[in-house]
């Protein structure tokens, strides 16, 4: 597949492969963590530091993202004995992981810090439910709700679903095609011991589940969980001294929007999402195209969000996303597996971080499945993808994460193993 037309981009291409993700870590995925978000974040960042073979003294910057539902970077740094040269807590959910990774590169490049931990901690089930019920159901009306609240237009699924409805009309996409995303991700999750939902579902299970908002069935929607997740970004030079195989950052695009991200339905076509713009920064920056990518992490807040992004980033022709996600391509053993951990639909909801963590492990050839671990500490993958088995992608060299905030806003990142 040819590259999209090369455009002048904001990230200098000389930064390709100059930075790395050296550590990944998470808590367990639960409903009812029984812990504060501060405790979850501390747990996850600690795991990422240990994973990298670093000590807290090696970390000098912490970034986080949240939506008024979590702790702040300086508290977590304090709990881990980290003295900060930089910190920032950013407002936002999905699409933040890739965007903050890009910011971390810029911070290090500017000489402001050397090694950055990025976390997201949330009690997304037991405290502020991400689905829009409980505390999230009736926030005070602010100016940007002037023209939504009176119509009962609320909750992420409902605000995103008109995009999918229009896509079905414009391109003939069918509910059973996106239902395959849940079925396939559930197969992946069944090989992920830490996934919240390890049960395998079929397309029929999805279509038989109750309608939340037509066209969305219950099983088209992601799981709500409590968890902390973290990654550590540093220069490739420093990364060579870390414990893990090198996973280099090829290119990032962060929080790229469609025209009028404030009310994107104002401008058509509404069945196109931010990826159609973001890809013109992502692929030229990364120096690779969709055909070079071995596995994807397309954000699956809903089954259809993964489909729309894979399509608009160019993994298939415009309008053929329904076929792409249902023909076996995105399944383990297929041409380009998506969300091999089970993603948001099955593993847990993290606003994108777990999909980056998974791809880092895949590129290290260290997917944490049930395959035996050898005396050298490396996993002996069987590549038998039956239930309860392996989930390592064979010869995974290049991955792409496609983060989603809304139909109008997306971020993405290409990683490769050395």
């Amino acid at each position, binding site marked *: 597949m040819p590259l999209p037309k090369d455009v002048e981009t904001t990230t200098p291409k000389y930064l390709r492969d100059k930075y790395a993700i050296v550590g990944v870590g998470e808590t367990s995925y639960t409903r009812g963590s029984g812990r504060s978000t501060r405790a979850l974040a501390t747990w996850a960042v600690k795991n990422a530091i240990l994973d990298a073979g670093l000590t807290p003294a090696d970390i000098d910057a912490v970034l986080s993202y949240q939506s008024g539902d979590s702790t702040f970077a300086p508290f977590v740094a304090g709990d881990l004995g980290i003295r900060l040269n930089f910190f920032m807590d950013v407002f936002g959910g999905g699409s933040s992981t890739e965007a903050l990774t890009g910011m971390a590169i810029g911070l290090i490049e500017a000489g402001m810090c050397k090694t950055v931990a990025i976390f997201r901690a949330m009690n997304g089930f037991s405290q502020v439910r991400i689905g*829009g*019920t409980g505390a999230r*159901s*009736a926030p005070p*009306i*602010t*100016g940007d*709700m*002037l*023209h*939504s*609240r*009176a*119509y*009962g*237009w*609320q*909750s992420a699924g*409902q605000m995103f*679903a*008109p*995009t999918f*409805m*229009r896509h079905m*009309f414009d391109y003939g996409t069918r509910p059973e095609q996106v239902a395959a995303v849940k079925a396939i991700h559930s197969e992946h999750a069944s090989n992920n011991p830490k996934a919240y939902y390890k049960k395998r579902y079929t397309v029929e299970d999805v279509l038989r589940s*109750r*309608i*939340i*908002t*037509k*066209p*969305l069935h219950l099983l088209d929607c992601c799981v709500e969980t409590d968890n902390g997740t973290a990654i550590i970004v540093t220069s490739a030079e420093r990364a060579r001294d870390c414990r893990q195989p090198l996973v280099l950052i090829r290119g990032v695009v962060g929080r790229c929007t469609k025209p*009028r991200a404030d*009310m994107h*339905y*104002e401008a*058509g076509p*509404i069945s196109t999402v931010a990826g159609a713009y973001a890809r013109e920064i992502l692929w030229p920056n990364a120096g690779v195209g969709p055909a070079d990518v071995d596995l994807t992490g397309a954000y699956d807040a809903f089954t259809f969000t993964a489909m729309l992004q894979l399509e608009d980033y160019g993994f298939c022709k415009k309008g053929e996303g329904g076929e792409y996600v249902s023909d076996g391509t995105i399944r383990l053993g297929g041409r380009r597996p998506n969300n091999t951990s089970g993603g948001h639909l099955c593993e847990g909801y993290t606003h994108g971080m777990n999909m980056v963590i998974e791809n880092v492990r895949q590129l290290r050839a260290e997917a944490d499945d049930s395959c035996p671990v050898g005396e050298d500490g490396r996993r002996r993958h069987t590549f038998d993808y039956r239930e309860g088995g392996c989930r390592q992608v064979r010869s995974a060299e290049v991955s792409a994460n496609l983060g989603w905030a809304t139909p109008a806003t997306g971020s993405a990142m290409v990683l490769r193993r050395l």
Partner: protein
Amino acid sequence: MTDDEKAAALRPPADPLGDQFWQSLKEGRLTFQRCKHCGNAWLPVRSECPRCLEADWAWENASGAARLISWVVYHRAFHEAFADRVPYTVAVVELTEGPRMTSNIIGAGDPEALKIDQALRLVIEPDFGLFVPRFTPV
């Protein structure tokens, strides 16, 4: 939740331009803004033209003719004020004059039978202490 509580929860925040928009609806008119400088027409309300940034604009009355860009049917309410209304339909509609807005589709019989791009007309309904612009199939 009493009607007064619902109205309080759903009433738009005080805003000079927003207030004019809702006041016009009370008088039976759906209005949008048109730039006198470049001719651009828009909703929701804002103080400058989002195309040319000129603040020289005027209100215009919408004819009420519109088409359905997309829609969803809520089978679950995420705000208590809508709990007794499910299933209800939320739509993106495009006024003949160009601006798009969020709204509801009413009087459609089976909401599942709605067709994208179908013609709609404006119905202004008193609701939540406001006069809410909604649409119905032609």
